[in-house]
């Protein structure tokens, strides 16, 4: 399979803190890659650096073979990377339809373009509240909207930052179903997660981050079978 996203030896700092200390990973076309690790291990920073929201201090980020490190976030988004932030960041005063409109970008050749109707087919509950202001939706509905908004940009890779955080278990199950549906359509997904049960349901492979570097990489099934690795990096 082709590498859709290649990150090589990525370093990033917040002020003086050296958050990413040489992250190297590869997301292949059409797979769901889970990025696991403790809080503060660098999962969100890795995603923000790929997206250009944090300027990497060194290293490479290649998307479909093209170097994007150091570019502005909007340029990276226009090349086909979609970003779904952990805090959702819905535009509270805008309606569901308007939130989707902000995310809209021209279709890319080859795949059918995302439309509001297609988003509503994926998340039926959103379709019943098209005119509702984003700020008046529950946490679960907002999480669906933020994913829908990103899909409207017709990305080829989406970065999902902890989509299960703060959601009720039944809603998390719906998220899992949606991610699997996207994968069936050929979407590549980089998923940052704390909830191992959830990650296991949707991911093909996993990378484990610890102190700003990848410490383990392999098939999700292998990770679930490897008690020692899980104990070392994911639990106490």
């Amino acid at each position: 399979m082709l590498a859709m996203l290649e990150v090589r030896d990525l370093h990033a700092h917040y002020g003086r803190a050296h958050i990413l200390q040489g992250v190297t990973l590869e997301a292949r076309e059409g797979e769901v890659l889970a990025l696991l690790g403790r809080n503060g291990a660098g999962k969100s920073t890795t995603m923000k650096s790929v997206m250009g929201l944090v300027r990497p201090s060194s290293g490479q980020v290649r998307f479909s073979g093209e170097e994007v490190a150091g570019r502005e976030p909007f340029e990276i988004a226009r090349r086909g990377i979609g970003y779904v932030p952990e805090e959702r960041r819905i535009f509270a005063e805008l309606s569901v339809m308007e939130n989707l409109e902000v995310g809209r970008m021209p279709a890319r050749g080859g795949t059918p373009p995302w439309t509001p109707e297609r988003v509503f087919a994926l998340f039926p509950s959103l379709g019943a509240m098209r005119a509702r202001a984003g700020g008046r939706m529950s946490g679960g509905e907002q999480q669906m909207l933020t994913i829908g908004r990103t899909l409207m940009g017709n990305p080829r890779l989406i970065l999902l930052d902890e989509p299960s955080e703060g959601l009720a278990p039944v809603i998390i199950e719906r998220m899992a179903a949606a991610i699997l549906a996207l994968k069936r359509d050929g979407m590549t997904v980089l998923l940052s997660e704390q909830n191992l049960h959830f990650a296991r349901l949707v991911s093909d492979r996993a990378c484990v981050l610890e102190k700003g570097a990848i410490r383990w990489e392999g098939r999700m099934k292998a990770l679930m079978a490897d008690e020692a690795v899980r104990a070392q990096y994911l639990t106490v």
Partner: protein
Amino acid sequence: MLENLLVQGLSGLASASSLFLVASGLTVIFGVTRIVNFAHGSLYMLGAYLAWTLVTSLPRGHLGFWGGVAMAALIVGCVGVLIEVLLLRRIYKAPELFQLLATFGVVLIVQDLALLSWGPQDLLGPRAPGLRGATEILGIRFPLYELFLICVGPVVLALLWLLFNRTRWGTLVRAATADREMVGALGVNQRMLFTTVFFLGSVLAGLGGALQIPRESVNLQMDLAVISEAFVVVVVGGLGSLPGAFLAALLIGELQAFGILIFPRITLVLAFLVMAVVLVIRPHGLLGRAPSTAHGATAIEPPYPPPSPWVRRIGAAALALAVIVPPFLGDYALIVFTEIAIMVLFAASLHFIMGPGGMASFGHAAYFGFGAYGAALLLRHFGAPMEMGLLAAPFAAGLGGFVFGFFCVRLSGVYAAMLTLAFAQIAWSTAFQWVELTGGDNGILGVWPSPWAQSKLAYYYLALTLCAAATLLLRRAIFAPFGYALRAGRDSPLRAEAIGIDGFRIRWFAFVLAAVAAGIAGGLFAYAKGSVFPTYMSISRSVDALLMVLLGGVRTVSGPILGALAYTWLHEQLMRAFDLWRLFLGTIILALVLFFPQGLAGALQRGERRS
């Protein structure tokens, strides 16, 4: 009588329309960039001057006039783009008030550039072709041009509403208002978006100015005159709300028009009275909403480290110099030194509520003025000596702070700042217009110190003693539980309330303390000058205080002291040396904003840490 009312009502509508044009641009720019753009009035003035030049040099006729007006508005739009790209874009992440300081620098520069280009005299523009005459409405003659202006307001409102609610551009702008970074991550070039917003806002300002040339003369005072009114309209309407701004413009335009008939003296302050009433009743303006905490916008305030030995030594050395050197100085230098001591206290008092309290005040001069008038009125009406006057000063100011503060500290952000401004303007116009009590514009003269303090040197020492003591007391309070409680309310109102801190009472007391300190400064200033004038409470003195605090650095405890020293000295030197001192001061302010975004004290602190 009825006819008279009709005419007043119509001309009220016409001024409401003009006011709305300027205010709409201001509110659009604020809504998106969160920048309180003082330079908006300068853009308005530029629009008027450019329109005058274009219309008088283009061939007469419809094309010459309307073409000139349109070109002027577009050129002003381009000037706005220049300001945004060269200046504001670099400081979007700076604290709100620092951006305000930057736009104030632009105001100063534009003032002198306009003086250089168009000269000091008032310029009269030609009438608008086709709209020269008057028409009869219910038997009364009413100028056509005014009728035209009445229509412009609603048309612009409707167009802007469509633009913001029915176009993709508008949707993107509203989204960017809430969360710029996220809009960028969704593939929108938000820098360009901001620039276009600034262009639109500037065009509206320029258009507002250009359309004034058939109505009134073009002059160098237009910028500040219009900016204060426009701010009032924007705040009364609710920051960022276009319909709100329109409603507020109507309200203020009409009240002005009828106010003149009923109580002519009130016109100076009417707008501010309206603003005070509206903000007391509706803390976010007529149609404004409580701001949702925008993402990444709230910067984490740095801690106040206790003064390092290095800072202590410098401070002690400066104080020693201030004590030892003056006997060897001449009278002029002593006057400047006295003024600097007073300004240090004035700045420190403002910093007390701005820094630890997190409340900006655009009207701190009111308490300075209360102090000065407290002393002077006691002298004028009861013949009280200086000693009593200096006691009365903090008392009067404290009382003012007690009453005004009660309302101001309930509000937050720009609204709170604007309410302080409104109260200050009310105080100022009372001093200006209650001639029987205050002598009005002529002020109160003969406010001289007691015999023992008559020499410049003795008075300097008196001022130094009182100012240094009060400043040090404020500093102590910052590091005491009270200062911490004040900062607690600023850092996290939620957490402060959850551990039993009554934020309102804490802020109120801080406001009174700051007013008392400003009152001491004002009282000392009155005896230093020998007179008291309404200008002691004017906007420009409030702005002086703001500049001193921001220049020094609002996030450090020593900032205001440094800022007052630098600003008073700089101001004095530039005014003496150059005719175009505004140009220089403005340039220096811009340089500071761009290169020392933490203020002077912040820059020094960093230098110290690095070494």
